[in-house]
């Protein structure tokens, strides 16, 4: 019995080690969206390409879509842009752009230069809709079903791997 007691610290250490190892593998930057399975918030914002045109929630709802938060000041957005163009052109995914805290001229220039994967582009200069969506940086991408319910949120760059592993399964499952 006395001998066995010597193993007690080891027995305590093993679960602790496993717990901490799990902690190392988690990404602390990744926050679960508070809006998961909640309806898209209502908004009324101008279109990026046409300041006179007002876009609302109704322009998004009806078809399942990705909502991609992007800006020209965001280098990661630049990195993921080709992947978005490919998704829209080759796979016919409907991508709504949320141009977040950006300048209109710069954003339009970017789209003219790099291609425009967006079905619509919402111009959110002050980040009001971004705030309602719980956006805390760019890029962020939401998967929204045809009823306008947020089904998934991805923070960070989208590439082929992220699309295949994280977004596509959700996107195929929803209506």
């Amino acid at each position, binding site marked *: 019995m006395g001998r066995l007691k010597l193993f007690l610290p080891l027995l305590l250490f093993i679960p602790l080690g496993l717990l901490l190892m799990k902690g190392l593998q988690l990404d*602390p*930057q990744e*926050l*679960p*969206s*508070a*809006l998961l399975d909640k309806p898209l918030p209502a908004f009324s914002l101008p279109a990026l390409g046409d300041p006179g045109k007002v876009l609302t929630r109704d322009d998004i709802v009806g078809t399942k879509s990705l909502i991609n938060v992007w800006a020209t000041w965001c280098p990661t957005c630049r990195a993921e842009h080709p992947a978005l163009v490919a998704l829209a052109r080759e796979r016919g995914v409907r991508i709504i752009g949320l141009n977040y*805290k950006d300048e209109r001229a710069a954003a339009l220039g970017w789209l003219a230069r790099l291609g425009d994967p967006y079905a619509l582009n919402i111009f959110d200069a*002050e*980040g009001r809709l*971004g*705030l*309602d*969506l*719980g*956006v*805390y*940086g760019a890029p962020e991408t939401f998967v929204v079903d045809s009823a306008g319910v947020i089904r998934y949120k991805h923070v960070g760059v989208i590439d082929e791997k992220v699309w295949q592993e994280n977004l596509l399964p959700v996107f195929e499952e929803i209506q």
Partner: protein
Amino acid sequence: MSNRTAFRPLTGLALLLLLWSPLLRAVIETYDFATEEQRQRYHHFVEELRCPKCQNQNLSGSNSAIAEDLRRELHRLLLEGRSDEEIVDFMVSRYGEFILYRPPLDRHTLVLWAFPGVLLLIGVVVGVLLLRRRAVPGAGDEVGDAEVHRRAAQLLDHYRKEQS
């Protein structure tokens, strides 16, 4: 070298830092409030709410764009006369409980709140057990005062002999 000469550069440095400090604080924008109470609540919230972009900074400590936006929203909500609960709900419904430095006690956060207490309890139990064992006379390797004195005298004796 006297203390006075060493003191002077330090005084200069202190003065420089004093002059510098208003500039450092200027990154936080200033807001006007209708009442002193609103101002105090603002300062309470910027300390208690966590910046969602930064891992461990509150709203007052961060100059990231999102922290700036949230301070602006907080100011707006306060001027609109929202209650503390409404403000917390507003933040949590958008950014989740991550934004609260003091998450409420519920099923998900029970471990977080209870664990320090449990650890303390374990510590107290272990401590009491150790103390009790020590209190039993003659237990373990413990030796009495007389024995300690005897050994000390022996050592001293030995030492003196070597010296002479």
